[in-house]
């Protein structure tokens, strides 16, 4: 059975206007998204800013409210549960945030930051708590003494690892990583990515990896979904998406990856031009007259594309 199954998830925000501030329309931030995560896999959610990938992640963890649709976690629909009932499941789903500078409270010690999740669920003596925190802090490669320091005493990569330690504290099954390395330098990125792969094996974690960086997604993910304007336009394994993209938007994304082979520069520019032309010609096959994409259609067992 899949660990997480998202079924036709919709998140709409009302636009109010006119007389009496009545609802005149909706912003369809996420508009009918469905995907499944198997235990132990890394699933990538790819798209440009504003496509709804972060909103999807935040809704799964309960930071946003779903307008309609199901979020089945081990068979239970989280979208239907009240706040109190949901509490049981919050332990199993944790999040790593994008910006390691704003996601840690600057006025708390690392000990208090990392222990906060467990204080919500268990009553531990200070001694036990410190031991648990130190265990996790060591797992993320920081000095056990670090728990008495404040966030500003750490570098960006170290802070991101403190954020990961906090997410690991409750032994979660699923971690939603929202652009976990985009605020970091390349060499530090490598450190955090390697580390995320290590703890995935060690703690048997499932990742929902949200990113706009196609190089990193390819490095980390087994399967991925490409989002565009709140909808999936293509879903498949890494190989299928990178070697055989079908949707015009996916093609555009792949063509936008910088060319590392300097000899092929001219060619790459041409390819981008071709794809821009192709986009103009074949637009009607992929988008309806309101600019929304069609439903996903399977073209193989694992690969589906939104086409007419």
């Amino acid at each position: 059975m899949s660990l997480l199954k998202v079924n036709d998830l919709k998140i709409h925000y009302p636009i109010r206007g006119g007389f009496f501030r009545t609802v005149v329309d909706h912003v369809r931030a996420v508009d009918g998204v469905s995907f499944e995560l198997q235990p132990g896999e890394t699933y990538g959610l790819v798209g440009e800013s504003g496509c709804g990938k972060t909103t999807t992640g935040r809704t799964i963890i309960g930071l946003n409210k779903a307008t309609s649709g199901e979020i089945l976690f081990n068979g239970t629909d989280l979208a239907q549960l009240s706040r109190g009932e949901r509490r049981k499941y919050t332990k199993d789903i944790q999040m790593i945030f994008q910006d390691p500078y704003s996601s840690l409270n600057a006025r708390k010690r690392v000990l208090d930051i990392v222990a906060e999740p467990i204080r919500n669920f268990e009553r531990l003596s200070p001694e036990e708590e410190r031991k648990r925190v130190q265990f996790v802090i060591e797992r993320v490669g920081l000095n056990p003494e670090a728990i008495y320091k404040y966030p500003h005493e750490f570098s960006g990569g170290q802070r991101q690892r403190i954020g990961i330690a906090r997410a690991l504290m409750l032994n979660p099954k699923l971690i939603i990583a929202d652009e976990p390395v985009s605020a970091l330098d390349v060499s530090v990125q490598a450190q955090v990515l390697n580390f995320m792969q290590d703890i995935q094996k060690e703690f048997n974690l499932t990742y929902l990896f949200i990113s706009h960086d196609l190089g990193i997604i390819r490095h980390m993910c087994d399967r991925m979904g490409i989002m565009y304007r709140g909808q999936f336009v293509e879903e498949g394994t890494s190989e299928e998406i990178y070697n055989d993209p079908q949707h015009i938007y996916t093609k555009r994304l792949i063509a936008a990856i910088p060319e590392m082979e300097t000899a092929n520069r001219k060619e790459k520019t041409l390819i981008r031009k071709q794809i821009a032309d192709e986009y103009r010609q074949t637009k009607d096959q992929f988008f309806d007259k309101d600019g929304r994409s069609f439903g996903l259609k399977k073209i193989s067992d694992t690969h589906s594309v939104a086409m007419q």
Partner: protein
Amino acid sequence: MGNPVLNIRNLSTSFRIKENYYAAVDDVTLTVNENEVLAIVGESGCGKSALALSIMGLHQKERTKLDGEVNYKNQNLLRLSDGNLNKIRGNDIGMIFQDPLTALNPLVRIGKQIEESMKYHTKYSGSQRKKRTLELLEKVGIPNVQRVYKQYPHELSGGMRQRVVIAIALACDPKLLIADEPTTALDVTIQAQIMDLMKTLQEDTKAGIILITHDLGVVAEMADRVAVMYAGQIVEVADVDTILKNPLHPYTRSLLNSIPSNISNKSRLHVIDGVVPSIQNLKRTGCRFAPRIGWIDEEQHQENPLLEEVEPNHWVRCSCYHNFYFPEGKTGEKHYVLA
């Protein structure tokens, strides 16, 4: 490659912290030629932006000390008065900033912002300026130029704003463009568009471009020559192919090994040990990268490493590259090819 446009000789930029001055840019010597893109690569804090701002004289005067020479047309820009510098800034030398939203004035219409530098630097009449502005907007690929001319920055998307910033930089036909992380704030597809645009514009104008970036992908796609910076110093200079395929300095090799390549999927990335030293704690003698490659024998490093030309046009600092290896036993470098 053409004639040199800008000649930087032994440039050092020091900032005052409390009573002492610390060099953020340390003894940089570089030449930018006509019709060439020189990329300056490094991680945050390595001094690449400080270098760019020094060329333009944009640092706070009270707490900055500049040494060396930045020669443009037989003038040392560092010794010019503000008045004389203003004749060159925005005219002969244009700058493209990282964040297109903060680089534009939110209260001034697009057209006026582009015309501003022409007002100072040319004798164009009002109608000539408008004509030129519309041409520029068209050149940077903005649709419906008549409308955009009258719009405010907030009415445009990020990519469009960056095009406007580029149009401003190009307004007076600069001989040299300094682009400080021009695509970092943009989405991937927009980044590709802006890179393609800059390439075509460069072919047209034959200007020299200094491209400052941390993204090796952008370097691979745009640069002709690359200077790699670490802790305020240039550690390696060579043409782009050499840097990507045959890098010598341990820092360059480590950087290239730490980005996810597209061939060896799921393999472990190389992690550079330790952290970038802060400007105050930086050891000013010896090889600055030595603390981060601790497994290399101390004898391999030079006492006072200087940039040396090891092959024609390939400059490397410090002798430690001779016997450098990766501890994980990685032998050959990865080969970077994208699908």
